[in-house]
């Protein structure tokens, strides 16, 4: 019985990541680009996603802790409270990786299947990048997607 419940939770989680577009690493990077606020490049989506998630899960955790037991077994939540070096170092290392490429474990795996379809496009893009010295490229999001046409 626990496995079907976990499957359902995974499906709902993956649907949430897809609908919110968090499967796309560019969305995470656009959120982390706080300095882009000035130019309008900042994308607050990820903040909204977390807000929406917390609005649902925070009451659920309160309820779970009040009940002290889950439907299919005991409640096994982390109990540690100390902030140690491992926690801090892990958060910093994760933050560096996240800032470099924009994906974290959930979307990264949700995305693993999606990429197959877009293989040719991705390969072309990587191939184009390999010849360059610079490994980081920023797409000029607004300009490239919406070319402005001025009609005379």
């Amino acid at each position, binding site marked *: 019985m626990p*496995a079907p*419940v976990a499957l*359902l939770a995974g499906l709902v989680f993956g649907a949430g990541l897809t609908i919110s577009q968090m499967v796309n690493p560019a969305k995470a990077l656009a959120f982390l680009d706080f300095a882009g606020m000035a130019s309008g490049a900042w*994308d607050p989506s990820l903040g909204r996603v977390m807000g929406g*998630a917390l609005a649902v899960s925070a009451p659920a955790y309160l309820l779970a802790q009040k009940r002290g037991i889950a439907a299919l077994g005991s409640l096994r939540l982390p109990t540690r409270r100390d*902030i140690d070096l491992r*926690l801090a170092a892990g958060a910093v290392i994760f933050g560096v990786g996240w800032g470099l490429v924009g994906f974290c474990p959930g979307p990264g795996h949700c995305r693993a299947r999606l990429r197959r379809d*877009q293989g040719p496009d991705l390969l072309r893009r990587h191939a184009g990048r390999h010849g360059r010295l610079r*490994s980081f490229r920023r797409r000029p999001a607004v300009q490239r997607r919406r070319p402005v046409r001025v009609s005379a």
Partner: protein
Amino acid sequence: MSNFMPVSALLGGALIGLAATIYVLGLGSVAGVSGILGGLLRPKSGDAPVQLAFVAGLIGAPLLMRAAGAPVPALTIDAALPTLIAGGLLVGFGTRLGGGCTSGHGVCGISRLSGRSLTATVMFMAVGATVVFVIRHLIEG
């Protein structure tokens, strides 16, 4: 403004929160993706089928949605392959060392008002933002 879609962000977020709800009220544990994936590599007795089922759902969801004709977002990955590999290793190592990622610390941990998770979330967001700032505004200028 880049592709900001407030409604889909909130709705998608609520679904992620619902998944965490199903996990904690049904199974009694934290729906942290990095922890579940890490658990698969070191299977404890009995946990592996549950963790596998969750990951299957996570991977299957966008496929089912596309098969049903729902819009699935295009992906934009601008990092070069070496950067992707380095980033992936850092993400994997960091989340295991720090005991969580955006789902485990960011959603589940903050939901249960954990000081550790709040600290970790603030730290990885600040560091991620710093890296993006350096790349986008200092290196690329």
